[in-house]
């Protein structure tokens, strides 16, 4: 895998992008909260100050000039909680009372609270100015520094709280996504190796039982199954290749030898005949394979009709009876008349023919084959028993696989597809096929459910 810069690849991870998004949302909401708190506090506080100023201004405006001067000096000035700044100015701007050295610039004498600068004290205050009937000017104001302080506090709080929180969120996101990235990286690398052909590779499982582990386990199970199927396909492929190569090799050898040594017309004829027979064997193999594929495709179920299994069995038994006779094998046929079942006559004949073919192939002279059919429970039971070498219990499943041939049967002519074909036909009909022990020999049992 190519390795882009870490940050870049980090930013490309969904996990980290999510962390970024969450951090941004968190910051925004905190910012909004702080802004709201600040705004609320500032507005309420300003309104309260403004109200007091208005109230005080109204009260002072109605006092006599002497009382006013007194009040400013005695009542308003000492009360630092209420009025920080007050001043009574003559019409020409000369201060009469209060703590303001000069009339604040730009202050309008309209009785409305406003912001203004107190230049000599380097202050910004909220103040109200009134023109009194005697021509003097009254100014009372209040220091609103506390509000500025509040702003500072809020900003500080923001900085102290929000920035670490965001950093923390980003760090956590980065960490989590880094971990995810590493796990994904491992999965990716494993997948690459598997794609390159190493099917034994498995995804790493941490053992924590988290989602990742469960996913990895599922994928691993899937890989196990795929590996098993691949092995099956491979062994079938190997067997096909082997079984095709055998007759072709023989043909080749024969032709090669004939080229060197054959002289007479008759010998040529014989060579060619044997070559053709070898090719036919290879072709039969291919035909049988295609047949199994066709049957397993299942299209033939459409051609099902009621059939009498005892009749089919009897006809095939009759077909094979002379072969048994020629091989000096005792051939016993015991068929009960059974109810009709749904099936394909041609395929069932082929099934029977294959079973008898096998039985005859493996039963030595002097042995016996017994074909029987009877009603049993909710179905019909067809049995073909022989006194051949039998099939060991551990191989009874395997013999239905394509191309299986036990070592004992390798020496006998045949292409090992007979039982696969039988299995395919049985499956198509919903029959159950099993192999038992005939002591000696084997018995093939076919159980067909009644319609």
């Amino acid at each position: 895998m190519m390795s882009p810069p870490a940050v870049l690849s980090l930013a490309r991870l969904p996990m980290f992008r999510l962390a970024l998004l969450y951090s941004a949302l968190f910051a925004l909401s905190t910012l909004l909260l702080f802004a709201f708190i600040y705004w609320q506090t500032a507005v309420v506080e300003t309104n309260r100050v403004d109200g007091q100023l208005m109230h005080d201004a109204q009260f002072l405006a109605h006092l006599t000039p002497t009382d006013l001067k007194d009040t400013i000096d005695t009542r308003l000035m000492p009360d630092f909680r209420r009025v920080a700044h007050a001043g009574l100015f003559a019409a020409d701007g000369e201060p009469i009372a209060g703590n303001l050295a000069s009339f604040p610039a730009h202050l309008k004498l309209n009785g409305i609270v406003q912001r203004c600068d107190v230049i000599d004290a380097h202050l910004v205050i909220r103040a109200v100015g009134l023109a009194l009937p005697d021509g003097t000017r009254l100014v009372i104001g209040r220091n609103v520094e506390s509000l500025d302080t509040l702003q500072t506090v809020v900003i500080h709080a923001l900085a102290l709280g929000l920035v670490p929180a965001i950093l923390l969120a980003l760090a956590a996101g980065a960490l989590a996504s880094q971990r995810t990235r590493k796990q994904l990286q491992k999965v990716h690398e494993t997948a690459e190796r598997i794609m390159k052909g190493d099917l034994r590779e498995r995804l790493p499982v941490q053992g924590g039982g988290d989602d990742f582990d469960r996913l990895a386990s599922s994928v691993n199970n899937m890989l196990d199954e795929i590996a098993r199927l691949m092995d099956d396909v491979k062994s079938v492929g190997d067997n096909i290749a082997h079984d095709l190569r055998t007759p072709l090799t023989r043909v080749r050898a024969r032709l090669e030898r004939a080229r060197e040594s054959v002289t007479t017309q008759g010998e040529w004829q014989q060579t060619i005949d044997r070559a053709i027979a070898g090719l036919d064997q290879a072709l039969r193999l291919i035909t049988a394979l295609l047949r199994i594929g066709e049957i397993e495709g299942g299209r033939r179920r459409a051609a099902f009709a009621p059939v009498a299994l005892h009749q089919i069995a009897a006809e095939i038994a009759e077909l094979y009876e002379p072969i048994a006779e020629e091989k000096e094998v005792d051939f016993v046929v015991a068929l009960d008349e059974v109810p009709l079942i749904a099936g394909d006559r041609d395929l069932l004949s082929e099934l029977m023919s294959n079973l008898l073919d096998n039985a005859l192939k493996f039963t030595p002279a002097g042995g016996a084959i017994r074909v029987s059919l009877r009603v049993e429970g909710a179905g019909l039971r067809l049995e073909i028993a022989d006194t051949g070498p039998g099939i060991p219990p551990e191989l009874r499943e395997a013999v239905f696989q394509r191309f299986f041939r036990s070592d004992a049967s390798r020496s006998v002519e045949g292409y090992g597809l007979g039982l696969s074909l039988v299995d395919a036909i049985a499956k198509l009909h919903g029959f159950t096929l099993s192999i038992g022990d005939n002591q000696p020999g084997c018995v093939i049992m076919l159980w067909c459910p009644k319609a």
Partner: protein
Amino acid sequence: MSGIMKTNDSPSLVRLLVIEDDQETADEIVAEFTEAGYEVRHAADGPQGLALAGSGNFDIVVMDRMLPGLDGLAILGALRQAQISTPVILMSALGDVDERVRGLKAGGDDYLTKPFAMAELAARIEALLRRPALSRETMLKVGSLEMDLIERTVRRGTREIELLPREFKLLDYLMRRPGQVLTRAMLLENVWNYRFIAETNLVDVHVGKLRKKIDAPGEAPMIQSVRGSGFMLIANG
């Protein structure tokens, strides 16, 4: 070639049309049957094949199932539509039973799955050319061999021959086609009505058993094996 017999009873040559797009297969068939004395024409695609076959100037047509331009089944349908009843043998690499059924339903007279032995094709062509008329005869007679279809008895000369039902049916089939090569597949198909390929030498064993009864020691053999092809009943004595 051993499997191919000329039809000696017809003075003119048998006219065979081969519709096959694979040049090598076509060449093989043309060479084989030209050598055997047929008058062979070849068409390499569907439209040309239909044009030739549609002339009605052929005794038999051997046609691939899948052809460029026009499908084998379509040609067959067009021919039968035009009341041209020339026997047609379909050849196909498609071995499916369904395919075979479709081919025969469309009006084909026989169906051969590729690859096949040339002898098999020759035997089937012969069988179609000499298709026995659906006779109402009650007696079949080949040389000294006689079969009474009503009494279900068989005799060679004066010798009565006891036959099992299946042997009777086999001999019936042979006696209706004297001097004609009959392949194992043809016998299995027509006498037993099976289409699968048996592994063992089933047909040989059955024919062998019949032969023992027909050809007694000292008598001239009537049931002959044709090497590389099958069997033939000849009027021998």
